[in-house]
């Protein structure tokens, strides 16, 4: 215990002496939550033209309220089409001025399919959920209507991804650099020194990385406007568990890869793949079967599931998530312990 506390103390001193690394970690987390989150959730300032001179609909108000469109109203349809062609607006809604029938024609410039997708989803939501004054043969409904936005839904997945990034990076830099220091080898060669080093290192990195993530969330949440939910105990608990899981995996990977260059490269590539595969951006259910199988076998899916449950109160299997994250942590620790024991014998 004394050894563990001594190593933790040493790591905390080293951490406080290098504030730049701490600040950089927070900046990275903020950047990912803010920029990546906004990109995934969709753009919020699509220039939208509305032709509805008689005010048949209240689309101008509804579109503005949806926080996805910046609306310009037109009295002249030809001018609106001209503005669409010249790029002043990205989409035009032509509301029929027919005394008998409601219809809305959506016209886009057409060169950018990604913008078209963003527009389609935004307009569908407005037309079917807000524009009740229009009698359109188009309706949408949810079996379990929720109160959170797309931005809120994206954040827990990004939190899970950040657990991986911050924990692995922190652990990698901390462990591999210090492994190369001779003083650290002396700690490991001491009786029960290796066990103390592993326990102390995983503990320190888990706590440090969790603090970084919590600070980043506290800064971005009011600025970007996403919810952190009300179940803070669960959020804190799953942050610590996820961080611990990825720290242990990082430790195992650091022991396998040995050099910081290979470790950084591998962790970065694996992180991007994990983010796309694990249902952080799109639901796993929408992916091909083989990709789903990969997602279900990786820890980030379960971390994201737990965070969604904790932050958004969506149905989550907490027990399963905890067990799988713990199993991955054990696997990482086992690999690290076996490799370090072998390496200690060669020292």
């Amino acid at each position: 215990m004394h050894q563990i506390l001594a190593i933790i103390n040493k790591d905390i001193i080293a951490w406080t002496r290098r504030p730049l690394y701490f600040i950089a970690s927070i900046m990275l987390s903020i950047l990912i939550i803010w920029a990546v989150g906004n990109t995934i959730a969709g753009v919020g300032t699509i220039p939208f033209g509305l032709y509805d001179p008689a005010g048949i609909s209240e689309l101008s108000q509804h579109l503005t309220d949806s926080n996805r469109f910046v609306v310009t109203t037109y009295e002249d349809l030809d001018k609106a089409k001209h503005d669409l062609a010249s790029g002043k607006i990205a989409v035009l809604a032509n509301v029929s001025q027919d005394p008998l029938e409601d219809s809305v024609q959506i016209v886009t410039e057409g060169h950018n399919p990604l913008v078209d997708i963003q527009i389609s989803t935004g307009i569908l939501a407005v037309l079917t959920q807000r524009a009740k004054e229009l009698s359109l043969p188009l309706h949408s409904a949810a079996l379990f209507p929720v109160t959170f936005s797309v931005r809120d839904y994206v954040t827990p997945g990004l939190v899970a991804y950040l657990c991986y990034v911050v924990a692995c990076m922190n652990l990698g830099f901390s462990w591999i650099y210090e492994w190369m220091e001779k003083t650290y080898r002396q700690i490991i060669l001491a009786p029960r020194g290796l066990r103390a080093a592993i326990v102390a290192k995983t503990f320190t990195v888990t706590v440090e990385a969790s603090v970084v993530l919590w600070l980043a969330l506290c800064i971005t949440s009011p600025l970007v406007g996403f919810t952190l939910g009300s179940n803070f105990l669960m959020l804190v608990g799953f942050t610590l568990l996820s961080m611990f899981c990825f720290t242990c995996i990082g430790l195992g990977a650091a022991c396998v890869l040995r050099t910081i260059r290979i470790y950084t490269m591998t962790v970065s590539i694996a992180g991007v793949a994990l983010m796309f595969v694990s249902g952080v951006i799109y639901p796993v259910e929408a992916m091909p079967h083989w990709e789903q199988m990969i997602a279900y076998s990786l820890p980030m899916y379960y971390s994201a599931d737990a965070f969604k449950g904790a932050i958004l109160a969506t149905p989550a299997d907490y027990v399963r998530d905890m067990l799988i994250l713990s199993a991955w942590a054990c696997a990482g620790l086992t690999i690290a312990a076996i490799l370090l024991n072998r390496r200690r014998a060669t020292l």
Partner: protein
Amino acid sequence: MFGPKPLKIAICLLLVSAWTLPPLYAQSGKQVVQEVVTLLSAPPNRNGSQRSIYEAVNRHMNYEDMCANLLTSKEWEKLPAAKKQRIQTMVQKLIEKRYYPRWQKLFSKGKIAFVGEAEARQDVYVKTHLTIGKKESQIVWHLRPKLGEMTILSLAVGRKDLLASMTTRFQRHLKEDGIDGVIVWLRDKLDEEEVHASGPTSSELK
């Protein structure tokens, strides 16, 4: 000065003219349409004035003949008076909720120009042009005399006719579910319009 012969001739001429000339109504078709457009163009400025506008418009609408046309005259005649009244009230409410606010917006923003008036049998068709911005659409008002007044039975925009489209839907429900099914469908449509009029609920917006 006036002997019995010219008097007889005058009476005969009067009778012949009364029989051959078209009947005289309080207002012509054009005047009725003009009044309805004026009523719907007026902005409601006081609480409850919307209701009074609708009631004034309803006086020019022929909902009884409209319902008889929706079901065909024979089907309509067979119905008990209470059901007739119920259907007529529901159709009136449906059109009030569905179309009157829309016509108010269009007529207050646009300009109506009268193009012509034509008669076919006892009915009168008034052709108008509605101009909003640069866009012009043709509205043909179908009027029918009732109790000495010209009343609006339907209106058509392009190929769409209010009465014809309602008749198609009525007949479909009548064929599938009978007259009670039509009443249920009308009630559902009225409920839908209530939702449209009241706007989205807070839970729907979340």
